[in-house]
């Protein structure tokens, strides 16, 4: 029962005590009786904090990059499991990300038709060290496998100081397809040194559509160009090859969503240049994404301008 600290009178409620104090002892500051907390309050608080810290710890641990790649297998053929996961991306998974937005879509251009051996030519110029090429190659390999077969894909990591991203390299590939031809040049090695020579015809296209000479450079039959990774490649940071390829059919994985949304955009552009062949691919929702989606907001452009790697994308937007 609360008591008045001044006169000792007892009251049934705190409110009546306070009213008494203010009326009878107005010159003395009312401080009221100290609130009594339940006996186990601090124990409960302690348990709440421990459980919350443990939960957050588990959450952080699951998100931490656990890179367990073995660099000694760089430039060696990717495993059958790796290749199987690239070819095994289901139509249903590709369809599920058809509306997922990515940062950069192939932009339309109006160059003279680019063909090789009578087929529309897809020209890729990149570099093993380049993190944006690392991002693009995942999407591009998956896209190309919808139109033909790739042999000679090898393990690669982007440069040690360029995020060390798990990827594959096109430096020794051979591509066969009834619908398109593919020319891949890795112009720089993992250390950034000159690697594969760029032919005169390819060099001309590269400087025409990308005067800055940045990489990656992807020319889809002179009808579309992509001068960037379709998505932000930093999402690959810390992930091993296996952690990426084993998830390629996991529709809810954010990394998978970005890689495959990039593949969808490239497949759509290829279908537009090869006469919509094969029909089984080009009639699918994933081969009909809206390439006009690339309308960068002011903030994206501001972000791009602040990052030298992103600057080609501004030009890309202007071409469109």
């Amino acid at each position, binding site marked *: 029962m609360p008591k008045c600290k001044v006169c000792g009178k007892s009251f049934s409620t705190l409110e009546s005590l306070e009213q008494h104090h203010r009326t009878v002892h107005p010159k003395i500051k009312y401080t009221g009786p100290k609130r009594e907390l339940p006996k186990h309050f601090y124990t409960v608080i302690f348990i709440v904090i421990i459980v*919350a810290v443990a939960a957050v710890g588990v959450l952080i641990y699951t998100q931490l990059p656990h890179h367990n790649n073995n660099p000694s297998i760089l430039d060696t053929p990717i495993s059958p499991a790796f290749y199987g996961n690239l070819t095994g991306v289901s139509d249903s998974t590709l369809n599920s990300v058809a509306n997922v937005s990515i940062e950069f879509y192939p932009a339309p251009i109006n160059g003279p038709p680019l063909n090789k051996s009578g087929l529309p030519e897809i020209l890729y110029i990149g570099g093993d060290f380049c993190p944006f090429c690392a991002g693009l190659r995942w999407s591009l390999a998956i896209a190309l496998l919808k139109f033909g077969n790739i042999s000679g894909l090898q393990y690669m990591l982007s440069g040690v100081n360029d995020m060390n991203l798990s990827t594959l390299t096109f430096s020794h590939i051979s591509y066969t397809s009834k619908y398109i031809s593919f020319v891949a040049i890795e112009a720089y090695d993992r250390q950034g040194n000159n690697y594969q020579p760029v032919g005169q015809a390819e060099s001309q296209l590269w400087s025409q559509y990308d005067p800055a000479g940045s990489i990656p450079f992807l020319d889809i039959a002179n009808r579309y160009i992509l001068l960037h990774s379709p998505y932000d490649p930093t999402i690959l940071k810390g992930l091993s090859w296996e952690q990426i390829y084993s998830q390629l059919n996991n529709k*809810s994985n*954010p990394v998978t969503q970005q890689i495959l949304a990039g593949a969808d955009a490239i497949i759509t552009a290829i279908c537009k240049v090869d006469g919509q062949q094969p029909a089984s691919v080009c009639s699918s929702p994933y081969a009909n994404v809206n390439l006009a989606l690339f309308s960068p907001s002011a903030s994206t452009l501001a*972000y791009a301008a602040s990052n030298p790697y992103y600057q080609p994308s501004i030009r890309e937007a202007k071409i469109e």
Partner: protein
Amino acid sequence: MNKLSVATISLSAFGIIVAIILAYEYVTADFTVCNINSFFSCGAVASSPYSKLFGIPMYVFGLVWFPLIFTLSLAYSSFGKKEINVMVLLPFLLLGDVFTIYLWFDQLALIGKLCPFCITLYIINYILTVFVILSMRQ
């Protein structure tokens, strides 16, 4: 009126306003107010796949959290007339404070950018916790 109760209610109301502005920027993808430079950039954080947790965009947590704290502080203090109910509010706010450890990690370690409006919300939660602890000492 109890000053600390009123301050807690007011600050959680301010949290609701900031959370709504942040949600509006996410939904409209217009971050003109919140992009200070390439590092302090809500746009860069929002465009990252790590801006979602279990598929839920982070801004949703703010939209749920601050109305919850506002309602609890309002209801358990008789609209600011009485002291805040420490037993109800403190465990909630401490949970929120601990959860911000993950949010800091997410932005600094995974995304590599900071979202100023998000940080404002974390700080509001820290200040609310201080208010409630001060209320215990009264």
